[in-house]
């Protein structure tokens, strides 16, 4: 973490996050990551809907784009994709 560490006196109380969740790269431990074949994607949004970590964002063309900093590589999107457009690849 690049932010300087603060002591208990300066920490916000009540165990609320000190940083935004976006600043914690929780995808670091992933072994597999999704790779999307745009030619097969029908933009149905099931990957976006099923992702437990809200990893998917939409690009301008309507094709979902995974945020790999927060993807844990569970593969639910690949299983749910009706056109098999998502492949889980080892990183």
């Amino acid at each position, binding site marked *: *973490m690049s932010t300087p560490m603060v*002591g208990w006196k300066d*920490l916000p109380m*009540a*165990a609320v*996050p*000190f*940083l935004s969740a976006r600043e*914690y790269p929780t995808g670091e431990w992933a072994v597999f990551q999704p790779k999307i074949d745009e030619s097969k994607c029908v933009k149905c949004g099931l990957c976006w809907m099923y992702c437990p970590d809200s990893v998917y964002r939409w690009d301008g063309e309507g094709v979902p784009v995974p945020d790999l900093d927060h993807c844990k590589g569970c593969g639910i999107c690949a299983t749910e994709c009706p056109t098999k457009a998502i492949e889980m690849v080892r990183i």
Partner: protein
Amino acid sequence: MVVQKLVSQTMMALNGDEAVAWAVKQSNVDVVAAYPITPQTIIVERISEFVHNGEVDMEFIRVESEHSALSASWGAALAGARAFTATAANGLALMWEILYITASTRTPVVMAVVNRALSAPINIHNDHSDSMGARDSGWIQIYSEDAQEAYDNTIMAFRIAEEAMLPVMVTLDGFTISHTLQNVSVLPDEVVSNFVGIRKIPRIKLPHIYGEKEIPLMLNPKYPISFGPLDLFDYYFEHKVQQNEAMKASIPIIEKVHREFAEISGRSYEPVHMIPYKTEDADVVLLGLSSTMSVVRKVVDELRSEGKKVGAIRLRVFRPFPADMIRKELSKISTVGILDRSLSFGAEGGPVFMEVRSALYSSSSKPTVYDYVYGLGGRDLPPKLIKKAFNELLEAREEPEKPVIKYLGVRE
């Protein structure tokens, strides 16, 4: 004591559980989530009657377990509601993980714990093993002596919890208080309502997320925050130290709320954390919690009439532990007996004993401390056994003896 704001009160015949239910009814509580368990059931029965008769504007959530009861109360409190729940024994044990979560997220939930023995074997009667087990979870613990005090403590608990930003456990002895009818002075609804007020939400700064703007510390769609997320070796330690400091900081808050309550009700529990009885010139003292201490005071009076200099101290607030006050009060006494209504298996005595003795270790005059474990599973403690303990202490004063842990009322 200041009495100019004293209001006229109604005398009602209530048992301890009903007294708590009345306090909840009058305290502008928004949400009650509870699961019935003996001897607490009457509390939630009465509250559900109040709700369903339309006597009070409150959301009553019927859940499927105590784990859910506290989870729902916690969630409601995070959303800004004033929340209450009640439990006993195994129910409290089932709430365990949420006890810690409620305290670490600084959520001011108030819970009545009607003290009951923990299984196995199953026993529905009173001892303190349930709330003593929860002593390290970060909840403020106030022990009531009778139904009147259970009523008063519950009202004060809402103020204490919200000012200290910590959950409060108000305990009352199962059956001895919870099911025994007593005369209880009940304050008028609007007086209690004004005393507790409407719950105020504190504001905090989260500079990395919301900049310099202060945001309300609650679940709020306008300023979303999550409570209790991952916090590993980077910040967990700091959060726990913060919580411990909050516990220490609650000591003057508890005193202040008691003083203000005494002004309207005329009932003063000075000096709040522990109440000494005839200790000024006492040779030996028995220190304990809850309803037992009213019998102990009777025995003190009897022994005083026989010329024996004995005294009693009732500990009201066990968490935060008033170590300084204990040290000050006991430093002039040579022999102290502790009444422990629970065991810490394999330890050097019961929980109250261990804390009192460790508080006394830093005092210059170290009194000899004996532990009397009594009343497990509702076993009676008749005055003759208390007399026996006092007489033993008086003898031990002349000639200290071992062992330090004794049982009162157990068959050999």
